[in-house]
């Protein structure tokens, strides 16, 4: 077993194994670094940029950067927290996030982060993009209005031959998730559930189930996201 290396987060001495991602290393030391796109067991992508920290002064994403000994990491600073809030606000204006009517409300990681960073209103104008809801698949509904393009579904859900069921289509501001019609049609229940589970927002929903948990008992009703760290 590799030896523990020491590093600091916001000046506090921490220990973790070299090569651990900074986000995990921080968690092991009870320091929370927020993320939307990172998912345990799936290669990191650095898509949302919310986990940006300063490593020895340089902006890096904590999900993709591996720990090396002696790193001095800034995390809970006003600069970085405002950066994260700004990114959350950008995601809110980019799509159509109608929390009051969303089945994922209360369990949505984007919303929970907005709570944690006390987003009252995004500082940017809303785009109100015209986006479809794709209900053509037997087990899942893909609501593009709510998609934040974190690529979790792309990375985490493949078919038994390793082929992509979800993929990015187009690029830039036009980027959206493409759902392979054939493979989505053959999606097993287990994979469909996984696709729903990995989605941090309400962009991939099961067809036959909604508003299961009463308000007040949902994941982020009482405690902010990251409280478990």
């Amino acid at each position, binding site marked *: 077993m590799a030896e523990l290396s020491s590093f600091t987060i916001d000046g506090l001495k921490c220990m973790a194994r070299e090569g651990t991602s900074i986000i995990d290393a921080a968690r092991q030391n009870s320091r929370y670094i927020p993320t939307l796109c990172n998912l345990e067991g799936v290669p990191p992508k650095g898509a949302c940029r919310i986990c940006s920290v300063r490593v020895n002064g340089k902006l890096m994403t904590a999900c993709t950067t591996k720990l090396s000994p002696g790193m001095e990491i800034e995390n809970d600073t006003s600069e970085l927290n405002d950066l994260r809030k700004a990114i959350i606000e950008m995601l809110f204006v980019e799509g*159509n996030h109608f929390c*009051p009517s969303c089945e994922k409300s209360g369990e949505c990681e984007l*919303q929970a982060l907005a709570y944690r960073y006390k987003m*009252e209103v995004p500082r940017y104008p809303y785009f*109100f993009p015209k986006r479809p809801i794709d209900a053509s698949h037997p087990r899942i509904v893909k609501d593009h209005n709510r998609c934040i393009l974190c690529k979790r579904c792309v990375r985490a859900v493949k078919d038994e031959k390793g082929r992509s069921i979800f993929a990015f289509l187009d690029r830039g501001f036009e980027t959206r998730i493409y759902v392979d019609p054939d493979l989505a049609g053959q999606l097993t229940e287990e994979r469909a559930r996984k696709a729903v589970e990995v989605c941090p927002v309400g962009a991939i929903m099961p067809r036959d189930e909604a508003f299961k948990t009463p308000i007040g008992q949902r994941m982020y*009703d*009482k405690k902010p996201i990251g409280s478990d760290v």
Partner: protein
Amino acid sequence: MQKPVIATASLAGCFGCHMSLLDIDERILDLIELVDFNKSPINDIKEFTAECDIGLIEGGCCLDENVHVLREFRNHCRILISMGECAIMGGLPAMRNGISVRECLEEAYLNGPSVRNYNEGKVLPNDEELPVLLNRVYPCHEVVKMDYFLPGCPPDAELLWQALTALIHNKEMDLPYEVFKFD
């Protein structure tokens, strides 16, 4: 010292935020001690009769009339507050953003299942007296400057109470996590 004056309005909203304001229960009596109400559906005063300290706006702007009312509030209120999701981001009415006005009107007056067989003249209401639909629903701060934002659908009564008393007493708000919600 004169009591602060409050005005309220519901634009493209459902009055749920106003209901939530009433949901402060017995503290409504304290509120009446603390402030005077001017133009508001709560007391049914239709026109401004005084300059106000605080304006509470529920709902976004989906009609030209909403814009006129909002601008009037901006002119008469020192502090203007977006109350609830519709005022802040358009809310459920804004789900029509991205659908053309014509399609909305046709669905509502010509093609919808509840009207299909009854609108014999196939008329879209067009009287000059009627307000005009805007091309989309606008959050209030995309029309005039708004000073504060109280999220929620509706905002928790506790949030409204805390915000109002904080403003009136010129204090910082100390909000518990549970009351700051978007739904």
